[in-house]
């Protein structure tokens, strides 16, 4: 197989060289009469090669810039998500949809009712204080499981993204909830890197979110871009082919500098070559900047 490929290549090259020589013979000489003499063939080749290398470098830079954003977590320090996290950690937040003011009203009502019944107001008030403290400790978000805090966060996210009251199904709500879940799972996965079940679930969530957002772009582009900006994502992240694999985790340093995927000898060689090329191109560009008038190849 390799042999046939190389033969084909050589044939192709040969043909192009022939064509070049014929053309230069017939047409170029009268036109170029007044210009300086053309460079030698070998020099021309070197020059073209240099141009190619700088172009490759440029393309690589563009590609790297495109892939800067984390396709799972999005922009760092996203305002919406940090606010959600802060909301959960507030001291007076209660679980199961209870509002602090409502619970207090209820407790006050119960206290007054029992005072009316028993005529011993002081003892009732004393025990009511203890009761109140117990109720608030039980209901406080700080003493509850992480599942309940996730529920609280998803509920807040839903309320911010909903199109009308009680909307749970529109695309932006689904995407927002998926994002909240992803960020919640991320903390767990980083601490428990052997929890493959949850890593898989997270991967599915990321891809599901991509799908939903792709649909939203078709359905309502304005909402789509609003959602993206709110969740700290971008268009490229939604439309790229992405699998949340170990290489990605290594690249974005989920577990610090831990090596998750070892490169083969061949891949190492390729990377070394790329690095060398990059260095060379940078050197050449620097030289061109220092002395732009000199004719280089």
């Amino acid at each position, binding site marked *: 197989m390799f042999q046939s490929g190389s033969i084909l290549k050589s044939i192709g090259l040969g043909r192009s060289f022939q064509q070049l020589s014929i053309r230069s013979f017939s047409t170029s000489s009268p036109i170029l009469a007044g210009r300086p003499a053309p460079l030698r063939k070998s020099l021309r080749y070197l020059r073209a090669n240099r141009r190619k290398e700088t172009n490759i470098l440029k393309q690589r830079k563009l590609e790297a810039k495109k892939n800067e954003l984390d396709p799972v977590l999005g922009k760092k320090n996203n*305002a*919406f998500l940090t*606010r959600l996290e*802060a*909301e959960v950690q*507030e*001291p*007076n937040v209660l679980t199961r949809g209870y509002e602090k*003011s409502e619970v*207090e*009203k209820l*407790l*006050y009502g119960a*206290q*007054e009712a029992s005072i009316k019944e028993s005529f011993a107001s002081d003892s009732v*008030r004393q025990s009511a204080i203890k009761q*109140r403290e117990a109720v608030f400790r039980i209901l406080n978000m700080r003493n509850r499981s992480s599942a309940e805090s996730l529920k609280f966060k998803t509920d807040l996210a839903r309320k911010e993204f909903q199109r009308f009251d009680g909307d749970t199904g529109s695309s932006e709500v689904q995407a927002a909830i998926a994002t909240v879940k992803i960020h919640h799972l991320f903390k767990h996965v980083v601490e428990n890197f052997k929890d493959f079940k949850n890593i898989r679930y997270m991967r599915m969530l990321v891809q599901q979110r991509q799908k939903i957002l792709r649909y939203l772009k078709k359905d309502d*582009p*304005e909402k*789509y*871009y*609003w959602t*993206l*900006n*709110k969740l700290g994502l971008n*268009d490229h992240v939604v439309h790229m082919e992405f699998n949340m694999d170990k290489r990605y985790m290594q690249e974005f340093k989920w577990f610090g500098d831990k090596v998750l995927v070892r490169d083969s000898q061949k891949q190492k060689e390729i990377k070394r070559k790329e690095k060398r090329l990059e260095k060379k191109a940078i050197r050449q560009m620097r030289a061109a900047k220092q002395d732009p008038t000199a004719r280089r190849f």
Partner: protein
Amino acid sequence: MSKTVKVRVLRKSFDKVVNKEIMKRKDFLVHDEGEVAREGDLVRIEQCRKISKRKAFSIAEIRKNKGQQFLSHNEDARARVIKEENEKTREFLARRKNTTEEIRNNTSLITDLMLIEKSTKGNLSKEQKVKVSQLKDKYGIKDWPPQKDALRLQIQSLREEIDDLTNSVANQEVFVRKLQNLLEDKEKGDEILTKMGKNVETLKKHTRKNILRKYLLENEQEESKKLSSFLDQDLSKQVEDLKI
């Protein structure tokens, strides 16, 4: 590649194997002299001279500037989201400040209500009185215990409905009596009709009745308006008197 864009052309073609039409696509490199096309636009392309190895078409027109729209949507959304987020974080910080203050002072709705309750019973110091009035403003409490139905029962609404109906029946009866009087008093009726520019002799009996009914209704409305405005004036006068 500057001045070059990739254009995807979709074509239908009949597939013999699956026995139906399927979409086939081909990508063209296309010349874009003004660099006007954006990713996502719908364009028409035309053949031109061979520009490079893979370029033989150029953009003739942009049918739908969807790509441009996407870019502008993105810009708008970015500005909007920043504005919204700033507002929401400000709200959140205000709330947080409130709660920290509550925790520091060890106050809650219950302690506040207990203080208000205490104020109705006995002697309070001056500071406490000021505080009670502040708390009443805060929660919108006018009297203690607040006179408000904890639960609205159906029987209450039914009773109110009955009251409304009896009122309207009484009003109707009064109106009917008035109309009867006006119809019986021929001189007065004639006077009103001539004032309105009607020919009294040619009017039929039921037309006469209808016109007079309408007249009475309008008259009543005006009267009620006058009465209400008069009452308002009276009230404002009373308030002024009180101030003096």
